C-alpha cells in the first residue's frame, strides 16, 4: 500500500501539476492527464437527432476534480440542511443533493463565457460557476457578505462575472430569460451558448413553449436542460405530464435523454449540445436525475415516494459513488485517500460556515439600496420619493 502511494508520489513529480479551475490540487490522488475511455452507464436516447457516442474520454485529474467538487456540493447541501434546522437559514431552501452530476458535468463542458441560468435549486450551480462557499452560506443566512448582499436568499444566487444568471423563484420564468441571454449572445456574435435549466414541473409552463418557439425561429444558441428529478414538489411526473418524455416535448426541436447521475454522460451530452446549438439552434437535454431531499426543507420528501425508492437510488445510482468506484477501479486513488478527502472537505465546509457566521447582518440602510441603479444621482423609492438623495435639476 505504502509502496503504491510512494510510486504515485514519484510519478506526480514527473507529470505537470494540473490545478483544477475550481479547487486546489489534491494530494496523493493521481492527477495524471493521460486520457482514458469510459463508457457511459446508459446509451443516450435521441429525438430528431443522431446521439453522441457512449464512449467518453476523461483523465484521472478530471475524475478527481469531479469527485472533489461533487463532494463539496454534497457536503454544502447537507450543512445547509442542518443550518436550516437550527433556524439560521429561514424561508425556502431547496437542496440539490443527488443531482450534483448535472452541475459538475455541465460546467466541465463550458467556459465561463457561456451562460447558465436556473431556477431555485441553485446553490450547487453557483458553486460550480466558481462561487465561494463562504458567500453562499452568508447569503443563505442573510448576511452582508452574501453573494446578493443578503437581499436575495436561497433562491437568488447570482454571479455576473461568471455569467451565472441565477437563481429564480417563479417556476419557469427563467426560461424566457435564458433565451434572452442567448439572444444577446447571438446579437453580439459572441460564439457562446446559454444553458437554460428547468425542472420536470416547470416543463408544463406555457412560457417554456413560447420561448422554445422563438429560440427555434431565430436559432438562438440556447440549450434547454430539463433536470428531471421525477417530482414537481409532491406531484410525480406521470401525474402532471401527459407525456413525461421531456426530451421529446420540443416537437420540432431535437432532444436527448441523458443519465443525469453519470457525470461523464452529462459532460458528453453538454459538449455535444453546445456544438449543436452554435450551428443549428436550440436543443433539449433531459437529465434523468434524483433529489434525495424533499422539494424544499419544509417537505419531508417521503409522503409521495417510498424510503425504499430513495435508498435504492442512493445505492445504485449515486453520482459520487459512481466516480469513487471509477477512481478505485483504475487505481487513481485508494479508499483511504478518498476518505481523507471527505474529511478535508468537511473541514472546509465547516470553516466556510464559521467564516460566514462572522459576517454581520446587512446595515438597515441596505433596505433602500439597489432598488434603482444610481441614475442621474437618483436613488429613491415609492411614489412620493420620501427619501431623496439628490435634488432635481
Amino acid at each position: 500500500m505504502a509502496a503504491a502511494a510512494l510510486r504515485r508520489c514519484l510519478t506526480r513529480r514527473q507529470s505537470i501539476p494540473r490545478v483544477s479551475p475550481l479547487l486546489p490540487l489534491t494530494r496523493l490522488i493521481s492527477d495524471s492527464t493521460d486520457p482514458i475511455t469510459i463508457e457511459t452507464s446508459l446509451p443516450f436516447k435521441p429525438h430528431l437527432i443522431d446521439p453522441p457516442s457512449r464512449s467518453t474520454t476523461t483523465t484521472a485529474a478530471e475524475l478527481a476534480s469531479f469527485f472533489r467538487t461533487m463532494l463539496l456540493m454534497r457536503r454544502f447541501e447537507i450543512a445547509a440542511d442542518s443550518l436550516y434546522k437550527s433556524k439560521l437559514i429561514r424561508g425556502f431552501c431547496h437542496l440539490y443533493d443527488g443531482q450534483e452530476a448535472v452541475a459538475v458535468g455541465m460546467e466541465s463542458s463550458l467556459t465561463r463565457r457561456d451562460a447558465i441560468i436556473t431556477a431555485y435549486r441553485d446553490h450547487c450551480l453557483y458553486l460550480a460557476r466558481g462561487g465561494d462557499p463562504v458567500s453562499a452560506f452568508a447569503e443563505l443566512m442573510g448576511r452582508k457578505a452574501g453573494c446578493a448582499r443578503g437581499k436575495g436568499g436561497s433562491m437568488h444566487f447570482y454571479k455576473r462575472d461568471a455569467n451565472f444568471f441565477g437563481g429564480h423563484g417563479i417556476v419557469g420564468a427563467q426560461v424566457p430569460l435564458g433565451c434572452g441571454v442567448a439572444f444577446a449572445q447571438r446579437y453580439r456574435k459572441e460564439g457562446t451558448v446559454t444553458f437554460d435549466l428547468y425542472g420536470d414541473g416547470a416543463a408544463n409552463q406555457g412560457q417554456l413553449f413560447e420561448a422554445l418557439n422563438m429560440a427555434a425561429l431565430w436559432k438562438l444558441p440556447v440549450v434547454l436542460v430539463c433536470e428531471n428529478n421525477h417530482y414537481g414538489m409532491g406531484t410525480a411526473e406521470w401525474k402532471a405530464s401527459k407525456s413525461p418524455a421531456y426530451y421529446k416535448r420540443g416537437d420540432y426541436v431535437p432532444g436527448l435523454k441523458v443519465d443525469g447521475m453519470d457525470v461523464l454522460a452529462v459532460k458528453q451530452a453538454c459538449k455535444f449540445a453546445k456544438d449543436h446549438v452554435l450551428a443549428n439552434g436550440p436543443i433539449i437535454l433531459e437529465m434523468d436525475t434524483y433529489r434525495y431531499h424533499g422539494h424544499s426543507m419544509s417537505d419531508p420528501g417521503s409522503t409521495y415516494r417510498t424510503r425504499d425508492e430513495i435508498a435504492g437510488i442512493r445505492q445504485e445510482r449515486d453520482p459520487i459513488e459512481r466516480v469513487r468506484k471509477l477512481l478505485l477501479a483504475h487505481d487513481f486513488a485508494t479508499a483511504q485517500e478518498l476518505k481523507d478527502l471527505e474529511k478535508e472537505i468537511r473541514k472546509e465546509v465547516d470553516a466556510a460556515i464559521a467564516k460566514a457566521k462572522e459576517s454581520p447582518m446587512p446595515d438597515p440602510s441596505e433596505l433602500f439600496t439597489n432598488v434603482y441603479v444610481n441614475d442621474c444621482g437618483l436613488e429613491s423609492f415609492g411614489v412620493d420619493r420620501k427619501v431623496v438623495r439628490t435634488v432635481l435639476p
Partner: protein
Amino acid sequence: MKSDPTVCVMGEDVGHYGGSYKVTKGLAEMFGDLRVLDTPIAENSFTGMGIGAAMKGLRPIVEGMNMGFLLLAYNQISNNCGMLHYTSGGQFKIPVVIRGPGGVGRQLGAEHSQRLESYFQSIPGLQMVACSTPYNAKGLMKAAIRSENPVVLFEHVLLYNLKEKIPDEEYICCLEEAEMVRPGEHVTILTYSRMRYHVMQAAKTLVNKGYDPEVIDIRSLKPFDLHTIGNSIKKTHRVLIVEECMRTGGIGASLRSAIIDNFWDYLDAPIMCLSSQDVPTPYAGTLEDATVVQPAQIVAAVEQICQ
C-alpha cells in the same frame, strides 16, 4: 438606435409591418430583422427574453401592441424586471424600456381600453412615465432608453396623430420631472396623458369664467415630481387631479395621499380627484364617453373647489 448598437426593439409586428401604430415604421429596413425583432404572439416570454437580453448587456425596447396585452407578462415585469437588480444585490441591471399604447380609445371595447399604470405602480424598482405631446414623447423615449433602470412608457391610443413642430436635434426630457403646461394662481390641476387635453379644453372655459388654473402634466407617474407639484400647491392651495385610470387604486389615489402626507398645511380645500369609473369600458359611444372624465366635469369641479 443609430448611436448605440445595443439598442434593439422587439414586439409583435414592429418590423416589417411597421408597428400597429406606426411607431417603429421604417426601422426594420434601416437596422435589420435582428435589431427590430418581429415576435410571435407570446407576451410573457418575449418580455422575459427582453429582460434576459438586458441582463446580458443589450438595451431592448419591448413593445406591447396594446398595453393591456402586457398583463400576460406581469410576472416577468414585476419579478424579473423590477426586482432583479435588488435580489441580485446590484449585480444585474435591467435597462429595458417597456412601452405601448393604452388608455380608452374610440369604442375599442373593454379589453383594449385598459390603463395599466395603476397595476404597475406598486412594483418596486420600476419607473413609469406617460408622454402626452410629440415633444415629450421624443424626449421621454430617449431618456428612457438611456436610463439604467427599467422604465415603462405609457403612450395613448388617441394621441398618435398629434402633429407638432419639434427640434431635430437631440434632447431628452427628465424622466422624473413634471411639465408646467399653464401657470396660474387659483387652483393646481394635475393630470397626465390624454386627460391633459380635456383639462386644457376645460381651462379655456374656466378662463372665460374668470378662473386662473395652473395646469401641470405630471408625466412621471413613478416617482411623482413632488418638487414641482409642491411648489404649485404652496402657491394655489387647491388641488384637482384629473386622470384616466380607475378611481380604485389609481395614480390619483397615490398622488392624493402623497400630497396629504407632504403638503397638508398648504391646502385650503379637500383634494378632488376625477378618475374614470370603476367599470369595464363599454362599447357604446355614449357610455364610453361617460366612463372617462369630460371637460364639463372638470369645469364643475374647479368651480366647487374655488368656492
